[in-house]
């Protein structure tokens, strides 16, 4: 059973501690952070603890654990007033629940999550790192990198290296009008493209994980 969930949001990472013994949840959190440390580096974290009651000392321990992995705890989301009071003692922001208040002018039905849009040519040596989804309008040239907590959509030619679902999400997908990456990673899976003929005609393609392998298919408008 997974006690810890890590998810990218527009502001940073959302870490959710599930039910059960705190020590075990923390051990799992530590393991997850170690696995993807370079991606998390410098990120702002909101910690969702549900109904759990935590003391100032316990929150301090979690904060230190996150700091060891170079991520910054900024907010605690918990239903128990004692937990929120303890968090405030440490100078952290607090929230009662995860529900984001409705945004004025937004109408959403069903689940949605936030991303970032970049309109540029990403050149060799440049890198986009974002905890949510990433959309690039432009080419992603060889030697550049896009690392996203969620999905990656390239409205252009993808020749660089991309990592979707970098927080460990195997459900993430990568789409490009011309999918020709140096290397493609989804969650913990890594794929290199097969040798391609130079005269190939680019078609929009989508990569995703199926049965533990990265699969590439024509990018259709429905899937």
């Amino acid at each position: 059973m997974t006690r810890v969930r890590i998810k990218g949001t527009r502001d940073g990472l959302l870490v959710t501690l599930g039910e059960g013994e705190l020590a075990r949840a923390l051990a799992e959190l530590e393991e997850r952070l170690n696995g993807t440390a370079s991606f998390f580096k410098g990120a702002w974290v909101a910690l969702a603890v549900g109904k759990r009651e935590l003391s100032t000392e316990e929150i301090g321990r979690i904060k230190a654990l996150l700091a060891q992995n170079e991520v910054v705890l900024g907010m605690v989301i918990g239903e128990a007033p004692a937990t929120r009071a303890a968090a405030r003692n440490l100078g952290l922001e607090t929230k009662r629940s995860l529900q984001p208040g409705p945004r004025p002018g937004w109408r959403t039905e069903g689940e949605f999550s936030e991303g970032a849009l970049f309109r540029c040519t990403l050149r060799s040596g440049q890198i986009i790192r974002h905890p949510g989804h990433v959309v690039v309008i432009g080419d992603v040239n060889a030697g550049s990198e896009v690392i996203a907590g969620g999905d990656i959509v390239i409205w252009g030619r993808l020749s660089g290296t991309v990592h979707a679902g970098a927080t460990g999400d195997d459900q993430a997908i990568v789409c490009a009008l011309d999918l020709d990456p140096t290397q493609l990673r989804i969650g913990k899976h890594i794929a290199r493209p097969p040798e391609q003929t130079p005269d190939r005609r680019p078609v929009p393609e989508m990569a995703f994980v199926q049965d533990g392998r990265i699969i590439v298919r024509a990018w259709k408008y429905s899937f």
Partner: protein
Amino acid sequence: MAAKVMTITSGKGGVGKTTATANLSVALALLGHRVAAVDADIGLRNLDVVMGLENRIVYDIVDVAEGHCRLRQALIRDKRVPDLFLLPAAQTRDKTAVSPEDMIELCDQMRNDFDFILIDSPAGIEQGFRNAIAPADKVLIITTPEVSAVRDADRIIGLIEAEEKGPASLIINRIKPEMVRYGDMLNTADVLEILAIDLVGIVPDDKAIIVSTNKGVPIVLDNKAPAGLAFHNIARRLLGEEIPFLDIREEPNLLERFVRFIRQG
């Protein structure tokens, strides 16, 4: 009139920065402009050799920056063309001997006396490169149609955009038409598709360049060489003229297509 400062850079070494700087300087001077060529490759100076002015160096750019001499004393006049000067690099020092601020200051001192200041950048992305682009009003990227050179050019374009020195223009050097026709080399369209910046010239591969470099006589002074003509055209495009690109035949003809078909067969 204040001079326009143009830096020629590439990221990768050996793609023709120094040759381009020398030839564009001479070509602009031949068109009647006052030109200063500045060698920013301190410690590995070459521009003086390619321009054939090595034996006339007394002072260099580091001497000027450190105040050992006046700028006028370090500038070497090229007697073959009117109004062309070279500010040579120091050979016994390294890139840290001059700072980006020094380069801006030096160019500002020269701006009133010249129409163009061309800076020959060293390879790489470190301080020498930073020195070379610091005073630039315009950056010319030079690349050859090889994947490694294009990759480095792409990196450099990104850095120049970050420094807000863009948009840079591109020179593609050393195109071998027969290799392009057989699909063994990237063609102009391939390079432009990757780099997505303005093309200001294409220079065909020309053995005469090697001879001219060894002799210290820039190839634009030889009016029969195709590469010389290419550099002349680039100089005129930099002045705003509309000159069609050289007809370097990149598409295979029927016979070549047939040969290629048989080869692949």
